């Protein structure tokens, strides 16, 4: 195998070196930003060097270029006559494939790894500037790793005997999907697992194609399955995109109804809820095409409320008496726009007077789990910069690996010393302690330039005194999950621990409030806390929806007494039914996708289950699935694939729809048929006996000149 490795390495070496040199040049250019002394602030504050766009772009492009090219070359040089020359030797084809792969992989890793090692050496040892975190190299390492599927994908594309030109590139969709998805995983090892899984599929497919010389019939089942997976992804993408385009076109020419709200249309309109300043949950309505909004309480009784998002609302009673009156509401926006609406107000006498609505800004929002977003690819997982005002001579940065706040003299980048829980230690002195706990990567705090939020405590930097002032420290056995201090609660810091929700007074005169967390709080992504009733009460809203809207859509609102922390009231937002999903339009090409979407929408997305409205969709999609199944069965029968294979392809047609039919055409060789001399029907030439009459093939006709001895 060593000889094969040597041969393959020699063939690829110049290309790997060329790729490495080009990548090195890109990296060099990207690094110049890092050493730009003319900037008023060090560029490292926005991105550590291995996280700069330039470096990551260079490695991403390098990965695509070098990975695909080496894979393509390896595949290209192992087909046709060269394939025969390569494999006709006393070594198993698998060992030859392994040798080629080892050489290709080794050169790829070298071509990508050497520039990476170079850039690490420069920024860490040769010309260090500010902090360095080894973890930041993981993003570039992942960029190298996600190129591995491209190597084997490139090999597979070049070696597979594609039946039609476009299908040659189908595995590209799979390898790119694996690479992109792996690169997006917030956990490094999740990405590694994705790369590994995707690579295994591609290696099996490429290996099978190599050892069989691309002949589909000779490939073992596992190879066919791996190839099927790689092709299916491309076909599914193609069919879904093609189907969407077709439906868009249909909508354009025929006003097709299903695409108005995207590929999956919901017939229902969600109900919007709002919270009033005194803690009442109300329903907000906004009719399409009409300006202004109206509100009712949960029982449907109309309310006259003031939307705080509007600068002004004028209510003019027009007519009526008693319980029914007509009023004109005129809103004027902050940007000067006016809108007016006339509405029937029922029972005006019973309308509450405290009619002001809370908008999004009234809440301090805590996003649970937001620190997991981005994961290891985010700089904030490793360092935390402190921005002090005025002329800066020393930049302070919390380095998670050290657990200390380190000062760097600017622009010399010499270390001044570091701050720990015990105080400041000069550079060179042995630090006595370190901050414990993980950094909360995305605390929702104002003025966070000087804040350090850890799972063990919250601290503020005093740059002049060179110390970290503790604001809050977690109780033993507790861990801080999120921190917030927006304008809605200017004097308090909101701390969510794994057990409580606390309002910590920033000054002593503002007391602390400890609220219990909802038992099933883990089900909610966001927690919003708003002072209501003039600060006498606190409204806590648990929700699964995005918190960027003024409207509330789900979850519950708990009202607490701000002084005692006692629960006063709990208001649950009724579960929203989203109406019947409409997917039948474009999903006819992928019926199982459509049926799955319908089930998913009803079971998990709170869509209404209306058998009457959904049955016809199931009928259409079911009929489409059966049609695709039958197409595959008929084709497989006509191609004389045998009972078991016919059944398999039928199932694939049923499950994958049009993509399943295309997959059959992509993967299976269409057999040649000739007319049977015995029964006169067309028979497949690869079979020893006629599939209709079981006759053998007749011997070629003799012409009387045969000489055999």
């Amino acid at each position, binding site marked *: 195998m*060593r*000889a094969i490795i*040597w*041969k393959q390495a*020699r*063939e690829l070496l110049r290309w790997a070196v060329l790729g490495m040199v080009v990548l090195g040049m890109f990296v060099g250019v990207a690094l110049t930003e890092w050493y730009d002394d003319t900037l008023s602030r060090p560029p490292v504050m926005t991105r550590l060097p291995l996280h700069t766009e330039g470096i990551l772009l260079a490695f991403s492009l390098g990965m695509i270029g070098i990975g695909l090219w080496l894979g393509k070359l390896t595949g290209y040089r192992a087909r046709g*006559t*060269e*394939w*025969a*020359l390569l*494999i*006709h*030797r*006393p*070594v*198993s084809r698998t060992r030859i494939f392994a040798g080629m792969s080892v050489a290709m992989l080794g050169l790829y890793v070298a071509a990508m790894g050497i520039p990476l090692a170079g850039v690490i050496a420069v920024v860490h040892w040769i010309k260090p500037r500010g902090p360095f975190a080894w973890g930041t190299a993981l993003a570039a390492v992942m960029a190298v790793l996600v190129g591995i599927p491209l190597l084997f994908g490139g090999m597979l594309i070049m070696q597979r005997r594609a039946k039609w030109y476009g299908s040659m590139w189908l595995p590209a969709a799979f390898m790119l999907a694996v690479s992109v998805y792996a690169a997006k995983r917030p956990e490094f090892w999740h990405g590694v697992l994705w790369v590994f899984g995707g690579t295994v599929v591609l290696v099996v497919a490429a290996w099978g194609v190599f050892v069989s*010389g691309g*002949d589909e*019939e*000779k490939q073992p089942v596992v190879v066919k399955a791996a190839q099927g997976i790689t092709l299916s992804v491309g076909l599914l993408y193609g069919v879904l995109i093609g189907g969407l385009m077709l439906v868009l076109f249909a909508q354009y020419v025929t006003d097709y109804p299903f695409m108005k709200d995207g590929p999956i249309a919901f017939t229902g309109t969600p109900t919007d809820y709002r919270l009033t300043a005194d803690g009442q949950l109300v329903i907000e309505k906004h009719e399409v095409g009409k300006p202004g909004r109206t509100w009712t309480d949960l029982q449907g009784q109309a309310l006259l409320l003031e939307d705080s998002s509007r600068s002004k609302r004028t209510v003019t009673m027009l007519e009526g008496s008693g319980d029914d009156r007509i009023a004109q509401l005129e809103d004027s926006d902050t940007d000067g726009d006016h809108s007016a609406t006339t509405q029937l107000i029922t029972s005006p006498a019973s309308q509450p007077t405290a009619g002001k609505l809370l908008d999004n800004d009234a809440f301090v929002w805590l996003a649970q789990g937001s620190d997991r977003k981005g994961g290891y690819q985010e700089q904030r997982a490793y360092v935390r910069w402190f921005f002090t005002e005025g002329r800066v001579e020393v930049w302070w940065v919390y380095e998670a690996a050290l657990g200390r706040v380190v000062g760097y003299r600017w622009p010399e980048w010499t270390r001044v010393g570091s701050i720990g829980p015990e105080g400041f230690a000069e550079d060179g002195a042995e630090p006595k302690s370190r901050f414990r706990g993980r950094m909360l990567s995305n605390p929702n705090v104002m003025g966070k330039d000087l804040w350090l939020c850890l799972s063990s405590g919250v601290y503020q930097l005093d740059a002049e005194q060179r110390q970290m002032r503790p604001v809050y420290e977690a109780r033993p056995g507790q861990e801080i999950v999120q921190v917030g201090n927006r304008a809605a609660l200017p004097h308090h810091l909101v701390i969510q621990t794994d057990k409580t929700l606390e309002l910590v007074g920033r000054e002593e005169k503002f007391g602390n409030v400890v609220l219990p967390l909802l038992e099933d709080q883990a089900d909610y992504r966001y927690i919003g806390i708003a002072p209501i009733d003039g600060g006498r009460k606190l409204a806590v809203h648990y929700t699964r929806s995005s918190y960027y809207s003024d409207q509330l859509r789900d979850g519950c609102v708990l009202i607490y007494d701000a002084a005692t922390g006692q629960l006063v009231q709990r208001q649950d937002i009724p579960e929203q039914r989203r109406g019947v999903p409409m997917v039948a339009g474009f999903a006819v090409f992928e019926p199982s996708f459509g049926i799955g979407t319908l089930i998913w929408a009803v079971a998990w997305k709170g869509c209404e289950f209306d058998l009457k409205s959904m049955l016809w969709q199931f009928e259409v999609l079911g009929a489409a699935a059966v049609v695709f199944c039958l197409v595959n069965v008929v084709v497989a029968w006509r191609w004389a694939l045998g009972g078991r294979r016919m059944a398999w392809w039928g199932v694939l047609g049923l499950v994958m729809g049009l993509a399943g039919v295309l997959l059959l055409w992509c993967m299976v060789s269409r057999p*040649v048929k000739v007319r049977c001399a015995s029964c006169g029907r067309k028979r497949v*030439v*690869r*079979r*020893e006996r006629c599939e209709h009459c079981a006759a053998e*093939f007749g*011997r*070629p006709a003799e*012409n*009387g*000149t*045969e*000489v*055999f*001895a």
Partner: protein
Amino acid sequence: MSEAVIQFENLTHWYGKHCAVDQVSLAVPRGSVFALLGRNGSGKSTMIRALLGLQKPTRGRSRVFGEDSMDLAPQTRGRIGYLAEGHPLFGWMKVGEAERFERSFYDSWNERMFAAVVEHFRIGRKQRGKDLSRGQRAGLALALTLASEPEVLVLDDPAMGLDPVARQDFLESIVLTTRDSGRTVFFSSHILADVERVADHVAILDQGVLRVCCPMEVFRQKVRRVVATFKEGVPAGKLPDIPGLLYAVRCADELSLVAVERSGQKEAIWALGPAAVTEEPISLDEAVIAYLGEHGVRTSLLEKIGGGQ
């Protein structure tokens, strides 16, 4: 007959709608030099590729040393030397590198033979494969194939594209290295003079159908020319069926027939009413061309020209 090293059993191969090889069965005895002849596209390379397991046949099978070609063990493959059509090499390799590369796969390597063949073709050790002439490429490919001392040598049209001198060198190398070695050589060619010099068995493929498979001597004996002389010109019109007839040429008073020896053949010729019938020996060239060319009655070019006057 000695043991068969290579066997084809009903080998059939279709390329799309075209049947390239149609139920070919033949056996190559150990120690023979077996020539597979046929026109371009007659299925020779397909048979060789199927034999080496490089291509799965549509139907039937082939065996080497009794092993199915599609499941050849690496050790068995090591006993088979293969020289592909066009003498492919890894062009970037120097001759020395190519030798080191190839020898690393074999337990035994005949350095002396490699050196002799390379020297015979005047190839420098530092030359790269891509810089060699066609003849030298063929020589290097042959040297690399022979040096592993294979028991069976499979050559796919080895002399194709070589000039007469290179061809002579090439054939000499094959003859010298296989003589007295007990090695079996199975090769395809359409250069008949070369075949005549080296082959002791011959098979002829005519559009994928095997027409001839026998020792060379038998072939020579069986195929002959019969000349029928007529006093009043060759009878016009269609000739009656003559058993074993490959082709006949009318030329003035003579009817020249190339035919395989068959019973009733002479009677059929005498029935035409000739004044005399003579038999003449025929070269292999002519015999093979008779198989590969158009069968039936032809008019000689001379007669055509004469008729035009």
